[in-house]
């Protein structure tokens, strides 16, 4: 996998410290380092991306090579240290790995990390395949150390989550770091920043010059149609032009910032017309257009700005093929077969797993608040899926930790409703605690629901501070969510097993009757990390076909057949929620 290749590249480059926060499609980089690291490499899941960035910066200050990993929206959280650390510079090579998510497939936004490079004035490497990523990240470490600058290593889903055949060396332990040497250069002050800004501005054209000669920025072919591209778009372009390469000149950009202007000018000079194929934003297109104006080149540039390339969503060889047909009248190489009279297939959105304790938590709150005015603020994690019918229990979702603070804003604007904020355990630690402090300090009226399933489930079950185990496999003190909340000053904090339906409804009703900031922790482990219980079955003689279980729970193990509810025993894990709400008591354990 691309992420494994990136991890292998970092280890081959002698990385000493890796810190990150899980997020699709970035997660497997850090996990692979943890799995394959030689002695002497430290790895941690930090509490969030900002913490990870600062931990990595500290190691780089001490001369160690460090890697920090996150997804694109994680960089928003880490943008404070990112913007500053470039002014300070580093001693050991520091690579900021950020996974972008065109589509988006598993994210809130389609933001483009290449902009962050431009904005923070940090060089950006952009890999086009797993095998290139493996080598490129090693070059990125060398470049970082040589120029004393952190660098961004950007990849996208189809590089991160695609596999390729790669030979991986045996990893050696990293050389010990020199250690931190005290110097005024490590303390950011306005005067130092003024000087640093001048240095960064002066550096940009020099780095652009170096990148123009970088072997992974290439111009190939001598055709009249120029195509500029980077990242996985390069692979789509090569597939779409296969067999007719003589028509094209391909400019592959591996370093979108600083833009390799000199090479770009040679490219533009040699073609009649230019098309820019890139996912997310028009970064390469804008760089080319700016350069064209500066150098007074008269060439047409087609891309996202004129609508030739879709402004959102993933690209593919098929889409590139279609663009070539539309712009240049070239015959299609990729034909989508037409199928008539295809039977209709229902949509299949993702759902909470059968037996997921979040379903029970949402259902208990829904029942307890039935008929009352309430708003349910959601957050980022598996439990965002609680928005789907029939639960319909996520009224807002924005970004990590935001549900807690949005609930407060709603409360200040509208006193009549009871405002709930649902947050997962990992998200609570990542960015929920400050929101709770804010609520207590500003006397908000809200109910915090912590959905504690003892893992970071959505991204593949990573440990977090509440678990008592680190990524190095060591036992650490588990941070108690209940104690944290009590420490902040909450008087009403209850921990309940959501699979105890009656008790759960009771506790929510009790909380709803009070004022101030109240918290209920629904604690039950993710079904993927514990052994599944015996499946339940429907006694079809007793089932009256009311379908309450199906209509109210939306469990994937439940369906309707011949006017009776049926349970798919391959999916059911025996959570028992359906049995508790069945009015006829027809659901029970199958006789062994």
């Amino acid at each position, binding site marked *: 996998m691309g992420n494994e290749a990136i991890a292998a590249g970092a280890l081959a480059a002698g990385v000493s410290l890796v810190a990150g926060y899980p997020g699709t499609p970035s997660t497997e980089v850090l996990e692979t380092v943890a799995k394959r690291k030689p002695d002497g490499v430290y790895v941690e899941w930090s509490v969030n991306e900002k913490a990870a960035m600062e931990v990595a910066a500290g190691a780089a200050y001490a001369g160690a090579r460090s890697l920090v990993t996150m997804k694109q929206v994680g960089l928003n959280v880490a943008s404070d240290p990112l913007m500053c650390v470039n002014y300070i510079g580093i001693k050991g090579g520091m690579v900021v790995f950020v996974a972008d998510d065109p589509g988006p497939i598993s994210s809130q936004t389609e933001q483009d990390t290449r902009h962050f490079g431009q904005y923070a004035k940090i060089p950006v490497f952009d890999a086009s395949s797993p095998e290139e990523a493996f080598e490129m990240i090693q070059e990125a470490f060398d470049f970082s150390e040589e120029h004393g600058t952190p660098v961004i290593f950007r990849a996208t889903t189809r590089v991160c989550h695609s596999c390729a055949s790669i030979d991986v060396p045996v990893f050696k332990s990293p050389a010990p770091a020199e250690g931190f040497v005290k110097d005024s250069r490590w303390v950011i002050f306005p005067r130092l920043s003024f000087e640093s800004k001048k240095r960064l501005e002066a550096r940009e054209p020099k780095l652009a010059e170096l990148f123009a000669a970088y072997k992974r920025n290439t111009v190939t072919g001598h055709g009249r149609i120029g195509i500029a591209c980077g990242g996985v778009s390069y692979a789509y372009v090569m597939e779409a032009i296969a067999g007719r390469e003589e028509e094209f000149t391909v400019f592959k950009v591996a370093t979108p910032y600083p833009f390799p202007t000199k090479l770009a000018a040679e490219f533009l000079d040699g073609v009649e017309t230019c098309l820019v194929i890139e996912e997310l934003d028009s970064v390469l297109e804008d760089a080319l257009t700016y350069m064209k104006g500066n150098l007074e080149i008269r060439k047409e540039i087609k891309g996202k700005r004129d609508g030739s390339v879709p402004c959102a969503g993933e690209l*593919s060889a098929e889409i590139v093929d279609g663009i070539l047909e539309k712009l240049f009248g070239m015959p299609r190489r990729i034909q989508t077969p037409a199928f008539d009279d*295809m039977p209709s297939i229902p949509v299949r959105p993702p759902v909470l797993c059968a037996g997921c304790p979040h379903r029970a938590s949402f259902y208990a709150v829904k029942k307890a608040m039935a008929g009352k005015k309430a708003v349910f603020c959601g957050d980022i994690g598996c439990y965002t899926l609680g928005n789907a019918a029939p639960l319909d229990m996520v009224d807002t979702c924005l970004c990590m930790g935001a549900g807690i603070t949005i609930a407060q804003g709603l409360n200040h604007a509208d006193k009549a409703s009871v405002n709930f904020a649902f947050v997962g355990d990992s998200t609570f630690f990542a960015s929920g605690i400050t929101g709770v402090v804010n609520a207590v300090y500003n006397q908000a009226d809200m109910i915090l629901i912590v959905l504690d399933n003892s893992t970071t489930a*959505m991204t593949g079950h990573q440990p977090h501070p509440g678990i008592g185990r680190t990524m190095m496999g060591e036992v650490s003190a588990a941070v108690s969510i209940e104690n944290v909340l009590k420490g902040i000053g909450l008087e009403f904090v209850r921990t309940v097993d959501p699979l105890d339906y009656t008790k759960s409804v009771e506790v929510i009703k009790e909380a709803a009757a009070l004022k101030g900031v109240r918290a209920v922790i629904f604690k039950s482990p993710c079904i993927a990390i514990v052994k599944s219980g015996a499946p339940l079955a429907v006694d079809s003689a007793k089932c009256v076909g009311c379908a309450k279980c199906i209509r109210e729970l939306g469990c*994937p193990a439940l369906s309707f057949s011949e006017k009776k509810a049926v349970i798919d025993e391959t999916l059911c894990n025996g959570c028992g929620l359906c049995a508790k709400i069945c009015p006829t008591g027809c659901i029970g354990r199958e006789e062994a």
Partner: protein
Amino acid sequence: MRSCLLCGVGGQGTVLASRIIAAAAMERGLFARTAETIGMAQRGGCVVSHVRIGEQVPSPLIPPGQADALLGFEPGETVRNLKYLKPDGVVIVGNRAVQPVTAALAGMDYNAETMLDYLKSHVKTCIVLDTDEITRSCGSPKALNVALVGAMARSGVMGLDAKDIETAVRARVKPRFLDMNLKALQYGADCVRG
């Protein structure tokens, strides 16, 4: 270059199956690329894995109309992804439907037979595997993925044989699941015979 698209529902084991095919290709000294659905869609949503093997593979995603084989873990998803199949491509499909929650809620469950009939009438070679029988004979519904790969190997459509696949399975599954998976390989292969 040969391409195989695997499609199903999150949790059915498409990722392991695509890794096994890619590893088997590497055993043969071929280059392999895969692209997989990982993340939110894994929670019971549609999942698709692309596997492309050969001397050279330009990009990880199979364009429409270019898959030599379509391994369907579920009849509805197989029909949904039929556009990826080559005109003379092979479909290997498990016959048990996994009804989406949306369908159960709307009372719009689809019929697995309708889907299978459509596949049989629109595809030159369609091999149907009995999902429930695999569960019974191998001891777990999780064996479906390897049974599909076993059938794929026997069909020869990807240019890989049973031995390549078996080597890859042995290297990739946990020892306690090995017996189950070897049984599944054999079951899948037997479905293609005659």
